[in-house]
Structures are given as C-alpha cells and as structure tokens.
C-alpha cells in the first residue's frame, strides 16, 4: 500500500506546483544555448537526418499542390514537425518498431521508404502495399518496421505497449516508439496504454507531438493542464518535454529514452512541443480558427532552417548543396508521381483477399458474383473491369515490381 507523509490540514494540490521544463539545445540561429551540449552526431548521420527533413518537406509541398490540382484525393503534411519526427526516428535502432499516427512520413523517409513507395500508396495503385484500400498517407512497411497507419486515433498506443512487451519477451533489445498527437492523447486508449506499459514494464517510448491543434481544437480546449507531460506522474513514468523544433534536443532526449526503455524495460513519455504549420489536412482551412500572426510566429521557428544553420556552422552544408538537393528531390517527386498515377489499380481480387488469411468460400462467391456483374456492365466499372481482362493484366510490368517491393 501507498506509504506517504501525513498532513493534518486539508491542503489541496493543483499540479501547478510541478511545472515541467522544456529541454532545448539549439537556437534558431543554429548556435547552442549556453551550457548546452550537442549529442554525438557524426556528419554522415547529420546529413541523413537533414536530407530526410528536406525530402519530407519537398514531398509535402508537392503533394499538397497535386491535391489542389485534383490529381490526388487527400493529403496531410508534416510541415513544421520534421525535427520532432525525424529526430526521434534517428535516435532509434532501425529495427525498432514505429507505430505512428499519420503525420510522421518523415520517419519513413529517414528509414528509406522511396518516393515510389510513397506514391504507390498515395495513388492506391496496384503496387501499393496496402492494395489501394486505405486513404492516401496510410503508409506501412514491414521491412522498415513501420506499422501501417490506421485512421482511428490512439488505437496504436496500447498496441505499441503490447508490441514492446512482445519485444521484451523475445529478448531482442529492441523497443517500440509510438507517435501520437496531443489531441489523440485525450482518448481512453492513451490512459490504457500508459498504465499497462508502466505496470508491465514494456520498452516503449510514447512520443507525443504537441502541435497545438487537433484539427480546429486548440490545446487549451483539449486539456486544462500544462501539456501532456504531467500525465506521466500518474503512471510513475519517466518523462521529458522537449522543444520539438530542435533536432538536437529531440535526438538527445529520444536516445536517452531509448536507453531507459531497452536497458531498464521502462516506458518513457516524451512531449515534443511544436506547431502544425499547415492545415490539418488538404480538406481543412485553418483561417477559421487561428490567426496568420500565430502561424507566422511559428514559421520563424522552422526546424529545417534551424538545423540548416547548425549544419552550415559545422561546415557540413552550403547553399549550393541545398539548391542541388532541393532540385533533385523536386524532380524525383514529379517523376515518381507521374509513374504512380499511370499505374493500374489493384485487381478485383484484392477486394476480398486479406480479410482472412485465406479467402473464405462465401467471399469467393461474392467475388465471383461481382465479376459477373462487372463483365455485364464493363463501362460502369472501368477500374474493376481492367483486371478481368487477361490481356491487359498480363501486358503491363507491375508483376515484376511486386516481387522486390512487397516488404513482407
């Protein structure tokens, strides 16, 4: 039972007593705070991180434009949060599992998910690992240890606890990092997850991206407390709050969190303070609920520029390299997009596969019935009819690509 000090007058605590500080290393101009020490970060790794941040930004900008042009049905940007996402990922072992929310494409970029792979998912074509079943941005990669995104919020948080518990039993010295927004942290699953992870000592890092908004809802209407970090006290869980636009601080904090998780089998909560610079998604227009001024103030804290300044200070980067990188990435995005757009949709069979490990007789019947129907009305179902025509199906090169990209 709990053994605590006694008091004899009814004093209520309010939590204000315990303000959680923010860990920062890097100023916007690229210099370190006084007394701050950069984490070990060799040039090669620093450039891998930086490239990933820029590649993510380029992808985001281009794909939003593509959505605006009507080429894509939907898109979500990571803009402003690249340091949080990629810094955390870079602190991990590449074999650690990542279970993300949806705004963490930077983690995939860092781990080597190619633009082609992004595009296939975004366009839901026959090469999409998800077989064109989910909306754009629901990426997943088994080979990169990146769990396929699921739209229902916060469901991945207790799953991450379970996944990490399994890693512990398997004695792999690996952990799971779980990304989620400060909005998602309001779900019951958040509480379930942190409590279970703490009780069962799962090596999981709960990484909260506090970007100030959940769609239109500002964080002050999301919770009354000073952020998400103080909740850790309720689970006796290690916690740190970090400047999410500070790549060095995120990297250092997550490395230490990983050490605690893997060496001590203890969960850790990280709250990265940042800002969703873009709209919530391509369907959203933030002008109805927040001011340009607020956005501008945050644009000045751009995490990519901050790292760029630091790299330049290190003598590891210059303007020409920047220009070349940007150009080559833009070109690549456009090329891969064109390729992906042209690829055919997944075959009709993909409607009924993967519901179960094997297609059940009832599902096979439903598919057969659908095939008959589509054959009867070929013009009404241009996508579906395609895979029914053996000549068309055999003629293209998709099958060849499948083999080396499946991931599983």
């Amino acid at each position, binding site marked *: 039972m709990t053994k605590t000090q006694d008091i004899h007058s009814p004093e209520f605590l309010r939590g204000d007593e315990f303000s959680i500080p923010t860990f920062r290393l890097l100023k916007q101009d690229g210099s370190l705070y006084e007394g701050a020490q950069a984490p070990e970060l060799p040039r090669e790794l620093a450039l891998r991180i930086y490239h990933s941040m820029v590649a993510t930004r380029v992808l985001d900008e281009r794909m939003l434009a593509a959505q605006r042009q009507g080429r894509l049905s939907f898109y979500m940007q990571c803009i402003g949060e690249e340091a949080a996402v990629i810094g955390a990922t870079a602190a991990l072992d590449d074999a650690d599992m990542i279970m993300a929310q949806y705004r963490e494409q930077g983690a995939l970029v860092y781990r080597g998910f190619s633009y082609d792979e992004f595009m296939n998912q975004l366009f839901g074509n026959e090469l999409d690992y998800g077989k064109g079943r989910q909306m754009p941005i629901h990426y997943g990669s088994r080979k990169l240890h990146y769990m396929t995104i699921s739209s*229902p919020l916060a469901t991945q948080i207790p799953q991450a606890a379970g996944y990490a518990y399994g890693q512990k039993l398997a004695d792999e010295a690996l952990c799971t990092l779980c990304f989620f927004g400060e909005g998602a942290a309001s779900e019951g699953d958040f509480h379930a997850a942190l409590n279970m992870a703490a009780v069962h000592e799962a090596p999981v890092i709960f990484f909260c991206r506090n970007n100030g908004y959940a769609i239109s809802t500002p964080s002050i209407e999301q919770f009354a407390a000073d952020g998400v970090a103080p909740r850790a006290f309720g689970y006796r869980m290690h916690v740190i709050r970090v400047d999410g636009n500070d790549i060095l601080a995120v990297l250092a904090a997550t490395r230490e969190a990983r050490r605690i998780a893997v060496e001590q089998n203890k969960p850790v909560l990280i709250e990265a303070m940042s800002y969703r610079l873009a709209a919530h998604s391509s369907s959203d227009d933030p002008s109805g609920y927040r001011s340009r001024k607020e956005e501008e103030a945050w644009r000045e804290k751009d995490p990519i520029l901050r790292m760029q300044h630091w790299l330049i200070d290190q003598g590891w980067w210059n303007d020409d390299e920047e220009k070349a990188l940007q150009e080559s990435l833009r070109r690549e995005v456009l090329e891969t997009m064109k390729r992906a757009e042209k690829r055919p949709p997944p075959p009709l069979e993909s409607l*009924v596969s993967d519901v179960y490990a094997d297609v059940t007789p009832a599902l096979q019947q439903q598919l057969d019935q659908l095939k008959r129907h589509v054959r009867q009305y070929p013009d009404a179902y241009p996508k579906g009819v395609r895979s029914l025509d053996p000549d068309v199906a055999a003629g293209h090169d998709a099958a060849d690509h499948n083999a080396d990209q499946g991931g599983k």
Partner: protein
Amino acid sequence: MPTMNMLQAINNALDIAMAEDDKVLCFGEDVGIFGGVFRATSHLQEKYGRSRCFNTPLVEQGIIGFANGLAAQGSVPVAEIQFADYIFPAFDQIVNETAKFRYRSGDLFNVGGLTIRAPYGGGISGGLYHSQSPEAYFAHTPGLKVVVPRNPYQAKGLLLGAIRDPDPVLFFEPKRLYRASTGEVPEEDYQLPIGEAEVTREGTDVTVLGWGAQMEVIDRAVELAEAENISCEVIDLRSILPWDQDSVVESVLKTGRLVITHEAPLTGGFAGEIAAAVQERCFLYLEAPIARVTGMDTPFPLTLEKEYLADHLKVYEAIKASVAF
C-alpha cells in the same frame, strides 16, 4: 419555400431546437467555433454561447458518457461523433449505458433527451474509416432508436423529431448527400415521426426497401426497372430501430417480392433482420426469395469503392432477378 442542402437543413434543425429550449446543447469534436468538420453546427456557438455549443476533447467515450450524464440530469444533449466510423470507442456508453438506462432503473432515471448525430456511409473515397455504415450494430440493441434521413426535408423533420423524442436516438447522416442533396425545406419548425417508414413510390410488382443514401440509388435502379415495365413500390425505412414492420409487410403482401439494399456488409446487416421477419409474416405470399443487395463482407475499400458499393446497377439486377424468379 427555401432550398437547402442536407447540412443546411440539419443546421437549421439544431438552430430551431436550441432557440426553443435552452436545455438543448450541441457538442463534439470541432463542433464549436469551427462548426464541425462538415459545418453542421456552424454559427451555433456564436448564437447560443460557448456553454451550449462547444468543442470537446478528442474522446468519443467521454463525449457520450458526458452526454449520458447531461441527459440523465434533464438537459437535452445533441452530441456529434465526427464520423460514424469513430463511434466505436463510445460503444460501451451507448450499448451498455444509453440503451439500458431507463430499464435498469425501473424508469427512475432515463437519458431520453439524448441524440447522437454521426455522418455515415461511403461514396466519398473515404476507405476503411470514413465510409462505414454501422446501423446494424445498434439495431441489435433494445432501448436505442436509430434513424437515417434520405434528403434535406427528411433530415430536418426527423432530427427535430429525434431531439424531442422521449428516447435516446442515434441519427446517422448520409454524408455523401450533405451537399449533394438539395430540396425545398420549410423555414419553420416541423417534425417527422420516428418509427414510421414511408412509401415514396407505389407499385405492384416488387417492393424495394432501403434508407439514407441508398434511397437515391434505389430511385436510379427503379427508373431502369420501370423502363422495363416493372412496377416498383419503394419504401424508405427511415427508422431502423424500432422499424415499421407493418408497412413493409403490407407492401410485400401486395407485391409478393422484396429487394432490400444497404451499404453495410451483407452478413449481420439489417437487411437480414428484415428478410427474416418478412418471410415469417408473408410466407405464403412471397413469389421470390427476398433479395439483399449490400456491401461485400470485407472492410470498406478505397480504389475499388465503386465496384464494392451496392449501386443502382446491382439493385436493378436484383429487381429483375426477383421479378423473373
């Protein structure tokens, strides 16, 4: 009479309900100043203040738990779940609490004031989690009422009926029609009955039954069928629970044939209940098996959504097959 789309009709109904009774509250994720992601609650916070129209934290089980408590207290909460796909975290609060509140207390307490609004259904390239039609999950739950409108006029009248109904009502809004469906809607207050189906077209050869966005699909299918001289009687069930068995049976006794269509997967969908009940009551009058045209028994897909959906061509084929049986 003004023309409204379905969102405007819903917004108008909420406005009327809030103006009339200051116990009516509207809340949910992004429902406040933003007016909801579909804007069904636009301007309500401006008009009625933050205490009566507000954003909630992002927690569906909390939204409905909070709403249950408000309703028990005597308030009239109209809670929004942003997408019907996200109603499941609140399933326990709805199925174990909302539905059983009056019964378990012997009518000492009830949450009859509660209305839960949620956009449902496919056809908007939403994939697995922005397309589901979960009405059948709730229709297996005595104590709940489940209502689905087919057009703006129905939406306004049924929503006002739901808010004032003495029982808790789940109000599923066909989001595909939010802006696509427009029509004349009276400015003033009116109510449509909960629990009553509507025969929207009379016919003699076959009864075609659906609800919500499927009614538009049915209309297109029936047009094709009528061109082939098949006389269709069309019924909008409107209330899934309790459902209007008598009207359906009356029609089938006349036509001898029934085609039911819904967006949700076949197995365990509400068409099964209707078919089971109708075959029992119309056994000797049925001239063909009752047909179901539904979503497939899979999660909701994306790229092949058109193929997946129970569209007008599939309904039309089912009508023809029923008549030709």
